[in-house]
């Protein structure tokens, strides 16, 4: 055992018992991080979901490269592949150059729509999740550490934010704020749509992380090592950043891994309702909405299946991977 006073060390004993005999013989001291990593590596769900995520990310972020090889990008219109009513010819327009067919309307390639859609979706989710968790952690830690009336006010504010109806406000605010952001009539570039969505998601997502971190910090600040640091004359900044935050990185990481899939779903949700990424930029939620409007023809069913399926796959893999990360970091949690 290392001589650390970190709370997670208490859990190590149980893990040590699980470690194989061979390893037990050449006993070496390991940090909680290393232990968590060891647990994660032994988790088959973690492995499978991690590989899926990596594949999805390579597919999505390599999209510009793939589109060169594949011969079509997400924006190229192919009206010649559609009938006189703008519905794809053949079976959803599938052929050797368009593996998943083309979209009704302008005939854009569906596979490329998916890849570029995943890229947009995941980028928005990850960037937002980082900001959400960072903001949540700072607010939570600050609130807990300072305590008193300020803590009460912040808590009250969190309650207010949690009680706001997300959808209604998002639907009302997005068009207005977009107009403000652009300052007059104009085209909406991708970054405007994307930052709009990120801001909306951020406003409604930071509270969870803040509460979690606040609880953790509350319990930590009464611990002996903090008292020791205080007694040694450490200032509040040193205590927060050097003593407390390093001990809450585990819940923060768990919070992050759970926020990402929630945000992927929320982003698709907003796009489905028409306040997400706008034309001509591909988006998974908008693909679903488009498919739902065409359920009387094969293209609708097929498009719904693959666009909805992609969102499902993204959310599921991120969620399962998040679960595994949580279990690895905190083996005492229910399994």
């Amino acid at each position, binding site marked *: 055992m290392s001589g650390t006073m970190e709370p997670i060390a208490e859990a190590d004993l149980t893990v040590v018992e699980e470690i194989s005999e061979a390893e037990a013989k050449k006993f070496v001291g390991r940090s909680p991080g290393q232990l968590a990593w060891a647990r994660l590596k032994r988790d088959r769900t973690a492995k499978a979901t991690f590989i899926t995520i990596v594949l999805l990310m390579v597919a999505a972020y390599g999209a510009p490269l793939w589109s060169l090889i594949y011969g079509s990008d997400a924006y190229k219109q192919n009206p010649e592949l559609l009938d*006189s*009513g703008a519905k794809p010819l*053949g*079976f959803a327009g599938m052929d050797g150059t368009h593996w998943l067919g083309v979209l009704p309307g*302008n005939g854009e390639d569906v596979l490329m729509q998916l890849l570029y859609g995943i890229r947009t979706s995941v980028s928005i989710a990850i960037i937002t999740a980082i900001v959400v968790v960072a903001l949540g952690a700072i607010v939570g830690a600050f609130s807990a550490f300072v305590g008193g009336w300020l803590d009460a006010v912040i808590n009250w504010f969190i309650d207010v934010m949690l009680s706001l109806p997300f959808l209604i406000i998002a639907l009302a605010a997005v068009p207005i704020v977009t107009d403000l952001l652009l300052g007059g009539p104009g085209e909406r570039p991708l970054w405007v749509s994307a930052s709009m969505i990120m801001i909306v998601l951020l406003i409604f997502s930071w509270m969870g992380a803040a509460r979690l971190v606040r609880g953790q910090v509350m319990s930590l600040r009464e611990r002996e090592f903090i008292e020791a640091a205080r007694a040694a004359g450490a200032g509040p900044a040193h205590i927060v950043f050097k003593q407390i935050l390093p001990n809450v990185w585990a819940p923060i990481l768990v919070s992050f891994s759970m926020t990402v899939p929630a945000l992927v779903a929320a982003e698709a949700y907003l796009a489905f309702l028409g306040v997400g990424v706008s034309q*001509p930029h591909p988006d998974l939620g908008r693909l679903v909405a488009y498919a739902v409007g*065409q359920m009387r023809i094969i293209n609708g069913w097929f498009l719904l299946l693959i666009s909805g399926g992609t969102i499902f796959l993204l959310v599921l893999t991120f969620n399962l991977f998040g679960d595994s990360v949580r279990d690895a970091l905190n083996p005492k949690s229910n399994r």
Partner: protein
Amino acid sequence: MIALALSACSQNTGEGDGASDDIEVGSLDIIGTEADSTGPATPVPNAKPGGTIDYTGLSDFVHLDPSRTYVGSYMMVGNGLLWRTLNGYREEPGGGLKLVGDLATNPGLDVNGDCKVWEYTLKTGLKYEDGTEITAADVAYGIARSFTPELGEGAQFLQNWLQESREYKGPYEGAEKVPPGVTVNGNKITFTFDKARCELPFAVAMPNTAPVPEAKDTKGEFDKKPFSSGPYKIESRTIDEEMVLVRNEHWDEKTDPIRHAYPDKFEFKFGAEPQDTSVRLDANAGGDENLFTFAQVYPDLLPQVTSDLGKYGTRVVQGAQKYNGYIAINNNRVKDLATRQALNYAFPRDRWVQLQGGEFAAKPGTAFMTPSVPGFKEFNAYPADIEKAKELLAGKSVKLRYAYQNASELDGQIASMFKDEYAKIGVELETVPLEPTGWYDQIGDPTNEYDLYWAGWGADWPSGSTVIPPCLGEDGISDVPGASTNYSYFTEPTIEAEIDRLESLPVTEALPGWGELDEKIMKEFAPYIPADISYGVWMSGSNIGGLQLGQNLSTLDITKLFLIDPALNA
């Protein structure tokens, strides 16, 4: 579900029965004679009386007070079943339309030949639902009601012509019962104007010349239960739920050149989603054979229906409507003629029609007026030609702003399509999505900051005078935001002079002039981009006969409907 699965597996070969190519062109011989105005109407082939026709639709007919009715389907139910007007449109089974006297013995007598005094004589034997006689005074009272601001949702052409100042506010609170400019003498009613009003015969075919007896006027309540002068009367009505119409026994077909009254009863039910209605009509299940609706076949279902038209036989009708669709060029901002012409040459009309849903939803249009308007002239001033468009632009870099109502994915697709296609001639298009609500308020503001946007228009009556002046003349430009109807904000002194000249001509002489003017405006000024003529497909249950597209109102002609087997579902 099985039918769905089967159709779902089939390959889309892009082939199918094409939409009918011959669009019915409005005849110049539109004003009927005294003989045309005499009842009864030409019988619908094979029609039988009896039975109950069912209707299903999304919403109730919001206004059934003749002075407040201005929406196509409300007018169809009102004019067709519940009330008669001074003049009306006699539509022959199988096509052909004439303006005839409905309550009047003829479409109007121009007393001095200068279009300033018009005289109408009422027929004899005209009766309300309670058997009392319809008088000229009741017609005058009906018109007087339509001056009341609270009851003024209907067309206001006649009212504005009778009194430009609009000081007269209706017959209530002790005011005059006869509106200004109108005199009643026995069974004669006379309209006197200070200017030539050659199109009065059309204006008095609007619903608000329906007779209303003063004793039966319930003011605001009249909207819920109008007192019938037509072939049917309201038996019961629950607003937004259902309405049952039964025969008006006192209506005499011998006095009516327009209407039939085949079924004994009409049962209207409201609250059905258009998509569900289309699916239900398509299925034609037991009990639904007597069903019809004014809604067109829902876009989702359209490919399936139009690819197998033979299967539906006479229970599907299709045809061009009187509405156009065009891309307005904001002439306040795009002042360069060559640019406007280049935009016309490069307009991707084929892709526009494709995105509208194909030829069953829209026919390519190259004029402002639509074929059903008498005097329509077919021309294509700027046939698709990318090279010519480039030449006209001469390498200038043009950046324009296209605004669209962002109601569905399709709207964004159309914007992307324009962006792509106009890039080919070096025009950079900035596409701006706008809230779909209040679209016409946004583009109807002369200070709007957009260069290109969609708009549509349909003639109020079969004459270019209700198309060209409001949409391409000064009449259509208003400083009141949202009140403009000339969405291109185009005015030219030479064109205004021609409009004034045509408006003072007798109708039959003026009609072809509007078509010529339409072409002249396009050739010389290119103030807009013509895009399409609305086209529609309607379906009914299999027991409904006499299905026909009413040319004047561009929806199913309700008076011609009958039950093939009146005993079915009785």
